């Protein structure tokens, strides 16, 4: 049985259908994969300026918008200087 239980209280990366990347601590979820993220930040990727982190706080994301949820290795993540990362933002998904 696939479940999100193992991610609870861990910092995760969420990719949304519109291409947004949000990191936050998974505070909870439900049967429809709706997800509660605390202390969340959006990571805005750009080729010119490096990654900008926008604080969002407590977020409730609807499950049908979620493309991917992955656990973050916090130690590795903190060792990365986001301002040095240059990347195209993800495009929204295409139907």
């Amino acid at each position, binding site marked *: 049985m696939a479940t999100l*239980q193992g991610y*609870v*209280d861990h910092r995760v990366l969420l990719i*949304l259908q*519109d291409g947004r990347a949000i990191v936050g601590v998974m*505070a*909870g*979820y*439900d049967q429809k994969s*709706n*997800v*509660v993220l*605390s*202390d969340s930040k959006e990571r805005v990727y750009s080729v010119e300026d490096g990654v900008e982190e926008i604080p*969002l*706080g*407590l*977020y*409730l*994301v*609807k499950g*049908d*918008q979620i493309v991917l949820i992955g656990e973050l290795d916090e130690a590795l993540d903190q060792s990365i200087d986001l301002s040095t990362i240059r990347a195209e933002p993800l495009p929204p998904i295409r139907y």
Partner: protein
Amino acid sequence: MSEGHGAARESSLGEWPRSTLPLSLLNAAQNKPMLVELKNGETFNGHLVNCDNFMNITLREVYQTNAEGDRFWKVKECYIRGSTIKYLRVPDTLLDAVKEEQNRAREAGRSARGAHVSGAGNRGRGMPQRGRGAVRGGPMRGGRGRGRGM
């Protein structure tokens, strides 16, 4: 294996309130300010009046902005169908409030169950309970096998 499974379930139940259901959070957000973004990119800023299990919501004193963020409207009250929502942003303080409420509910449930367990000790003598008690003397509907097994 079944034993291990049972133990795992018990421990996860014991720690259950660590996780907050999205709908519990939403219910606790009543009368609180929130930002709602729809799938089409429009956003609605307002106070939550009511919500249901589909995440249909009503907001009051709403500032609506279009997807580009260059135009906005003031709306006294509006209803948003849950299926059109992309995400909701709610006050940070809400998570702790919900967790505290869950802990209170759990403590209340625990003490209620505790009273029950001590009552169950009397079961054999004075208090015929569902199942076993009814079998005694009364017409029974195939209840005996189960009664003995327990």
